[in-house]
């Protein structure tokens, strides 16, 4: 059971780094024009734009990297990165992934290069990537090792807002030569967020929600505190997050506090670990919660709020539908 908690915490830590104030805000990519194309003016066939522009980016470690063209062989070191790569249309360029990358399904056929226990430097080198896309969970030691081995590593910083997520999507699009796809994706995601915002603006009540992502110890379950996407999305979807009052982003709440807060809805982010509404109702002391009495206990796909990828918008929509079903008739 300890392992389960640990895994949840680590899954959570994807966003956690985003909550520490020391995190550098997602940098805006600076695009610099390369010297004019060496091709003679008579050449009629235009070169693909991507090879005539060199892109300079500052990554999440504050390093400035210059790319002469889009990456063709990408190794993703985070599940969120894998989702972003596929979402911007660069799925075919992904040659390696971390163990946790289970979405989209096509990613499952990509060889893994490590994960929870640690990454294999040699497995990464053997794939001959021209870009290693690291994430907020990647340790600086791993980045340094891969750089020493001559690989180009870009660390995509953890976003703290949806805006920063969109910046990340555009960055990955540019790095992989899918600028246009990324722009389309971002536009559609923004439209979907705006649609939810417009609907939520009309609500009169903001139900209180308790979101648990690990209730291994049902007397003090873990929930998303301030600064997490879990918290941010619940609020944006028109709810009131009980966890928002807690001091830590990944925080435990005591059953006593929970009973006092008396949430109107329970969301089970740990449904993937086998928690069900029935089991929750049977927990000693929980039967007094009004969410249990009214049957508003729902399993929830935790990946939709814990992975800083494009599916956060799916998470926002799913939350809004659960919180305000009347808006989505």
């Amino acid at each position, binding site marked *: 059971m300890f392992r389960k908690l640990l895994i949840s915490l680590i899954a959570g830590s994807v966003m956690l780094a985003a909550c520490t104030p020391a995190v550098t805000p997602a940098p805006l990519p600076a695009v610099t024009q390369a010297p004019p194309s060496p091709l003679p003016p008579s050449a009629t066939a235009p070169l693909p734009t991507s090879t005539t522009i060199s892109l300079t980016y500052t990554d999440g470690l504050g*390093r400035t990297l210059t790319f002469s063209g889009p990456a063709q062989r990408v190794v993703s070191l985070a599940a969120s990165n894998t989702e972003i790569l596929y979402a911007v249309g660069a799925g075919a360029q992904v040659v390696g992934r971390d163990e946790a990358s289970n979405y989209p399904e096509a990613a499952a056929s990509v060889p893994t290069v490590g*994960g929870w*226990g640690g990454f294999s430097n040699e497995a990464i080198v*053997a794939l001959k990537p021209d870009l290693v896309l690291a994430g907020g969970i990647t340790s600086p030691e791993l980045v340094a090792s891969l750089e020493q081995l001559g690989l180009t590593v870009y660390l995509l910083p953890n976003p703290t807002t949806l805006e920063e997520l969109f910046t990340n999507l555009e960055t990955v699009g540019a790095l992989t030569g899918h600028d246009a796809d990324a722009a389309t994706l971002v536009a559609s995601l923004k439209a979907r967020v705006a649609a939810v915002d417009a609907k939520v603006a009309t609500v009169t009540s903001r139900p209180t929600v308790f979101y648990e992502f690990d209730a291994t110890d049902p007397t003090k379950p873990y929930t998303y505190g301030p600064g997490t996407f879990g918290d941010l999305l619940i609020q944006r979807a028109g709810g009131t997050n009980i966890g928002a009052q807690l001091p830590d982003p990944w925080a435990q709440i005591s059953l006593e506090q929970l009973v006092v807060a008396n949430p109107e809805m329970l969301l089970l982010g740990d449904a993937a670990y086998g928690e069900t509404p029935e089991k929750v109702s049977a927990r000693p002391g929980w039967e007094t919660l009004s969410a249990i009495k009214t049957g508003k206990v729902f399993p929830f796909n935790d990946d939709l709020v814990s992975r800083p990828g494009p599916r956060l918008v799916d998470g926002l929509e799913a939350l809004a539908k659960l919180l305000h079903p009347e808006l989505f008739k």
Partner: protein
Amino acid sequence: MRRLPYIWTLLFLALAIILSIAIGSVFIPPKDIWGVIAGVFTGYLPAGLQTSALILWGIRLPRTVLVMLTGAALSGSGAAYQGLFRNPLADPYLIGVASGAGLGAAAAMSIRWPYTFWGLLAVPLAGFLAAMLTVLLVYSLARLGKTVPTTNLILAGVAFSAFATSLTSFLMLRSTGELRRAFGFLLGGFTQAGWNPALTILPFLVIGLGFLILNGHALNLLQFGDDQAQQLGLPVTRVKTLILVAASLVTAAAVSFSGIIGFIGLIVPHVMRLWFGADYRRLLPLSIIGGAAALLLADVIARSVLSPQELPVGIVTALAGAPFFLWVLRKAKNQGYW
């Protein structure tokens, strides 16, 4: 045949080195390995072997060296600690090197260091300094006038370790993104590629282990007890202090880059003692060679069982080491050696 034990352990080490170079998550055919080795000597690398050369030369060889050094350090200082404390349960972490290093590393990990040379060195440096500070603190706490009673050292070490370990757990629970890193450090593992870690710890090991090897005779005398050793002409307190400092220095250096790898420093000296006798003049060098070989084998297992995932090597040392040790213990003719 005084040299026979050395021949056996060196053969064992050679075998372990070959396995460590040959086995990894990427399969490199023996033919290609020969090609790369030949390329080093001839200066000509056939096309198509670049990646294999990078893996062998840039990843496996430096790692093999770092693992050897770490195993040698832990096992050598373990033998010295056991002799110093005259206690079969002593290991290099007995008086707080591990808990101190763990606390230092976890504290350093809770800060986001800039991605620079020194920023990357922050965690190993903090681990090393905290380990040495812990030993110093425990030593001064255990000191009574001009003597440092062994029992006091052990008790002060155990008490301070419990304190530091709790503080580490607290830091880890409070920490946000660094839980996995801290956990990895506490279980031990070799995460950094390249030669820097091995080259950084090498001077500490040469000085510390060299000193220990030269003090084999002193450790033999200490086995008679402090009073006897003193009567035999050994400046007991000074020698004990120096051995303690040397062994702790070696352990702290090893731990700083590889994390806290358990069991090697406890078990390898015992195996060597069971097989080859308890004379510290021989036991120390044999433990050093044997420790290097044993940790290499553990590391080969750690990176192949779940390949390309890597297990923390600390899991393997105890999981594979404990049954092996029990087997040696049952088989050994050298019973009652302690």
